[in-house]
């Protein structure tokens, strides 16, 4: 492929991807709808749940735009979820996040109809859960989805192995076969050897591993996780999060994950839906939520989060302001540096691949000696990061290394530079706009 064309592609794609992620999603969806073929794994359209015994009037008021509180005062009906719409792709981890009472658990339970939605569509592989006959619903729950609970929900009268095999037992699988699968799931969560113990003998973290193993044992497409780590100690919670990420990398399930912990949401979610007062107030990638909060509420919410665990290098890197090429002479390089006030200059080849860097004193040495090629002084011991690297993972390097961190892609093309100023600004919560 000609280099120029390649470069052109990148030039067009990059800003769109990084700055207008939402736009790309929208066109993607449009594309899909036109083709009318590929549906999202889960598609929620206008889902509303009203609690009470006379929802008709409340529903009408809701459609006319009355507030939840007004509806409650007038009709004594409580709005649980208000006109939620979103779609989740296969293999995506979609986090529903909000404070208690925001309706996130209700929303999750509408998806497998533990709670029946008052109105709206819940399409799973194109099939509406709300309209299913009881038998069909049972089959769907048995085969396609599994749930993980906040308080683990293990059956105290069953061994660990029998707990994990529960879903398979319900399917009517033979004992030997279901034990075999349950053992595999047990191994996956690292609890081999505990199969004959009872839940009462296990710590909280271990119990939730069993809960996850039980959900994985039936090999469902969709995992519904209702604050699965909220009841655990902070340290164990982090272990479990890492483990879930590991499992997810291996199995690529479609996950709906409910949490009230923003750090957890940012760590696990490919996309996050933020809920407040029964409504979804913003849907976006972790970075979008952090960097462009849709409302003051979201902004206040994300104020205190540990941004280094959510922001990636690409979010805070700056464009390399001056780049030398190996063919350039030391004088050119030195002039560049002086002009931009830099002590270090990255060197790339013609296609933008990072070769190394030169330092100002080396370059001026060369000039003094009258050498006209940079080759001799190019160093390649600079720290690098990829655009996806979490800031938390490179903060150390930034603190102790004199050279800025180069952000490169898989082809070693230089994408940007991390300098302390921009990173600190990013951590402090400054909007991206100020770097451009």
């Amino acid at each position: 492929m000609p280099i120029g064309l390649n470069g052109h592609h990148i030039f067009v794609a990059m800003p769109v991807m990084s700055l207008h992620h939402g736009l790309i999603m929208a066109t993607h969806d449009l594309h899909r709808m036109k083709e009318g073929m590929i549906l999202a794994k889960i598609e929620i359209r206008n889902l509303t749940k009203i609690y009470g015994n006379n929802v008709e009037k409340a529903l009408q008021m809701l459609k006319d735009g009355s507030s939840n509180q007004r509806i409650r005062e007038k009709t004594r009906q409580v709005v649980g979820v208000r006109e939620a719409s979103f779609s989740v792709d296969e293999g995506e981890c979609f986090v529903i996040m909000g404070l208690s009472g925001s309706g996130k658990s209700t929303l999750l339970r509408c998806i497998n109809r533990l709670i029946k939605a008052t109105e709206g569509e819940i399409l799973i592989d194109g099939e509406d859960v709300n309209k299913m006959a009881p038998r069909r619903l049972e089959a769907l729950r048995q085969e396609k989805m599994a749930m993980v609970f906040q308080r683990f929900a293990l059956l105290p009268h069953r061994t660990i192995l029998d707990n994990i095999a529960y879903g398979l037992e319900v399917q009517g699988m033979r004992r030997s076969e279901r034990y075999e699968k349950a053992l595999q799931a047990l191994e996956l969560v690292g609890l081999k050897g505990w199969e004959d113990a009872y839940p009462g003998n296990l710590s909280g973290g271990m119990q939730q591993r069993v809960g996850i193993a039980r959900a994985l044992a039936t090999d469902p497409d969709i995992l519904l996780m209702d604050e699965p780590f909220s009841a655990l100690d902070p340290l164990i919670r982090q272990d479990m999060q890492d483990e879930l990420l590991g499992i997810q990398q291996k199995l690529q399930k479609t996950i709906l994950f409910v949490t009230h912990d923003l750090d957890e949401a940012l760590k696990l979610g490919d996309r996050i839906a933020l809920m407040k007062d029964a409504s979804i107030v913003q849907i976006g990638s972790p970075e979008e939520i952090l960097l462009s909060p849709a409302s003051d509420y979201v902004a206040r919410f994300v104020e205190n989060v540990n941004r280094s665990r959510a922001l990636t290098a690409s979010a805070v890197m700056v464009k390399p302001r001056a780049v030398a090429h190996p063919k350039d002479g030391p004088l050119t390089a030195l002039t560049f540096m002086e002009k931009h006030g830099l002590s270090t200059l990255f060197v790339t080849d013609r296609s933008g691949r990072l070769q190394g860097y030169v330092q100002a004193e080396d370059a001026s040495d060369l000039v003094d000696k009258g050498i006209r090629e940079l080759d001799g002084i190019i160093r390649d011991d600079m720290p690098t990061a990829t655009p996806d690297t979490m800031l938390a993972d490179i903060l150390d390097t930034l603190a102790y290394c004199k050279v800025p961190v180069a952000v490169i892609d898989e082809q070693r093309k230089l994408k940007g530079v991390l300098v302390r100023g921009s990173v600190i600004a990013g951590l402090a919560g400054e909007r991206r706009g100020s770097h451009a």
Partner: protein
Amino acid sequence: MHSIPRLPLAQWTDQLINYLQANWGTSTQAFSNQMESFIKGLQQVLIAIPPELFIIVMAFLAWWLAGRKMAIFSLLGLFFIYNVQLWEVTMETLSMVIASVLLCAVVGIPLGIFSAKNRTAHQLISPVLDFMQTLPAFVYLLPAIPFFGLGVVPGVLTTIIFAMPPVIRLTDLGLRQVPEELIELGKSFGSTFFQMLFKIELPLARATILAGINQCIMLSLSMVVIAAMIGAKGLGGVVWRAIQTLKFGMGFEAGVAIVVIAIILDRITQNLGKNNKKGEI
């Protein structure tokens, strides 16, 4: 006061009983015969067991379920009953208790499940249970005679009326106490109604249901004694005869035998629910 006519509840009740007796008398008699042969069969089995063997087996059972002290108590207590020659009547009483508890469980547990699952059923069953538990036994003890004759059958049937409510109530309670999250667990994995019941709800309600059975046993024992008034015999029969003939010593012996049986049955069945090797949560 005179303006409001007296409610003829007594006449109505008499008329109803007469009507029922006239129209259903034969079928209740047939049922009565069936039941009588069942209870008598049970009685004969218990009496056929050599007392020595029975005493030793019960002692071991008590040891296993209620500890060493209870084993010694049951050994001495049963030996006392054997010694004062009340063995056969005790077995009569025991067979009536067993028959009544079996029937209470067979009818009461499903009714309890129904009541836990269905709001209307719960609202209907609750007041009936109150009625069954508080209506003085004598009020329905005597009307039972025209339907089932004298003897063990009306005795056991009135015992059932008296002893079944706790089975229904505690089955209902036990099922309602199953944690919501475990119900959600069952549903979220696509369990059918019966899978929910047998794999989740009943196992979790087990201890509570067994507590109901324990109460049922105790109530049965006390009622079986009273039912001697309508010819149910057993230990109650001895007490009844002793009172009528003013043989207070004989009455006391039979009374002690009843206490012994009550304590043994209570301690053994009380620990059935707790004797869960798997350990509660």
